[in-house]
């Protein structure tokens, strides 16, 4: 569905993103992960045709991004990080207006509002919405014309845990319908939960690309953490695959002196830090 090869782009003389290569299959959720200013949003702007003076190739649904025609956007839905809504219109009027720009049959506005818990706020002006409500309205605006490809930029940013959960469920439902989703985020928990594959982007380059599971398994290792009493309570840890080499652990097990023991997998955040040397949320 999406094929990017040798992609480079610069705002100034210096290259901002370079040597970007990846492919996204239909029905896949693909995540761009990276700190602010890493080039994630620029990459999304190239894929959506907002930036066209790039080098290399960026082909979406068989069309080079710089040559998108008007009707191409019938099948693209974009949820920008910051809501783009008419403050003086109601939520419903906003959806009606933006929907009127498409020729495709629109999804039912009432159902969409209900989906994100705004069923009682459709007649309220957007200027009276909270930040989270605006985010949710902005999100369904991108889904309204039932696009085949969705670009979501920090879709759960600023949402409380309940609404964030609902939003993630909707994203997974869209994937189940066969939609291709590009998720841009710096939230590792969301990425690990939602994405089939992720690309770590730092300083305009892809530092790693794989499924969250593979990244965790290939780069990190499961650890065992145990505690025991030796005058005071002490804690030690060792790699799961090297437990036989930990003689202290062996000794404690033989003497039944272990106070607690548990294993821990590294998180995607740990892997990101290991690969890129940067810390994310």
């Amino acid at each position: 569905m999406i094929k990017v090869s040798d992609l480079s782009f610069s705002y100034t003389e210096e290259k901002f993103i370079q040597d970007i290569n990846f492919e996204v299959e239909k029905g896949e959720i693909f995540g761009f992960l990276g700190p602010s200013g890493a080039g994630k949003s620029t990459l999304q702007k190239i894929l959506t045709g907002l930036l066209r003076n790039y080098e290399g190739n960026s082909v979406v649904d068989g069309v080079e991004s710089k040559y998108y025609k008007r009707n191409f956007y019938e099948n693209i839905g974009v949820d920008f990080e910051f809501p783009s809504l008419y403050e003086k219109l109601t939520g419903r009027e906003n959806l009606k207006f933006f929907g009127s720009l498409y020729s495709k049959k629109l999804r039912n506005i009432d159902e969409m509002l209900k989906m994100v818990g705004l069923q009682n706020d459709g007649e309220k002006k957007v200027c009276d919405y909270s930040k989270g409500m605006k985010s949710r309205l902005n999100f369904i605006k991108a889904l309204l014309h039932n696009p085949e490809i969705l670009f979501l930029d920090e879709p759960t940013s600023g949402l409380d845990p309940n609404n964030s959960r609902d939003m993630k469920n909707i994203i997974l439902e869209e994937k189940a319908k066969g939609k291709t989703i590009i998720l841009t985020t710096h939230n590792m928990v969301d990425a690990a939960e939602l994405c089939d594959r992720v690309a770590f982007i730092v300083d305009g380059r892809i530092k790693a690309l794989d499924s969250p599971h593979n990244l965790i398994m290939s780069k990190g290792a499961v650890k065992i953490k145990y505690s025991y009493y030796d005058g005071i309570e002490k804690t030690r840890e060792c790699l799961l695959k090297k437990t036989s080499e930990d003689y202290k652990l062996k000794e404690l097990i033989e003497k039944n002196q272990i106070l607690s023991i548990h294993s821990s997998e590294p998180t995607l955040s740990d892997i990101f830090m290991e690969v890129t040397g940067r810390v994310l949320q």
Partner: protein
Amino acid sequence: MKTYYVGLYFSFKQFIKQIYNDAMIFMICLAPILYILLFRYGLPLAEEISIEYIDLKVILSPYYLVFDLFLAVLTPTMFSYASAMVILGEIDDGITNYFAITPVGKEGYLISRLIFPLLFSLVITIIAISIFSITKILLRETIIISIMSTMLGYIMCMIVIAMSTNKVEGLAVMKLSGLLLIGILAPFFIKGNIQYMVSFLPSLWLSKYAVESNNIYLILYFLVSTLWVLVLNKRFKSKLL
């Protein structure tokens, strides 16, 4: 293609709705009507009364063409200010960018926000000059002056958008950009070559053309205007993306 035009229609409808819902922008659009009422009917009356009390044969009538020229530029200027304020508001709200990823596109957005209002103002200007001008301007000149005024309106809209980042700044720039119109006064009040000190202003050539009907001023007008458009274009475009 049909859908594109439907999208343009809805986009333009939304533009009108925004003007209607914003008292300040709405008043900007009404300004030409106030001007017509005040100057078209007020001026000859003021002239009559003045002559009666001051022992002069004429006071204002040599300058009636100045008032007609302001009548010509007022509608495109005010409409372009209204467009600029709506666009600045939409840039602020991220809506301009959003249009770029819809089938209407940025081009359609600009058509509905700039081209339609300016075409509308062109028609109004032709009608306004034909009906309300105090001097008798020929139809050919009326059409040419209206086109020149519309182009001036486009430049003023570009200035406001290119030089401001929000509506508040836009208001300040809007007031400043009014200085662009002072070229209209030069041929009437500045005698000799010194009037060409403002030759960088398109309005000077508009005024010269209206006074002398010489096509050379028409060419100079379009040259100077094109220069303004070229200078402003990069900054104007960058504001829209």
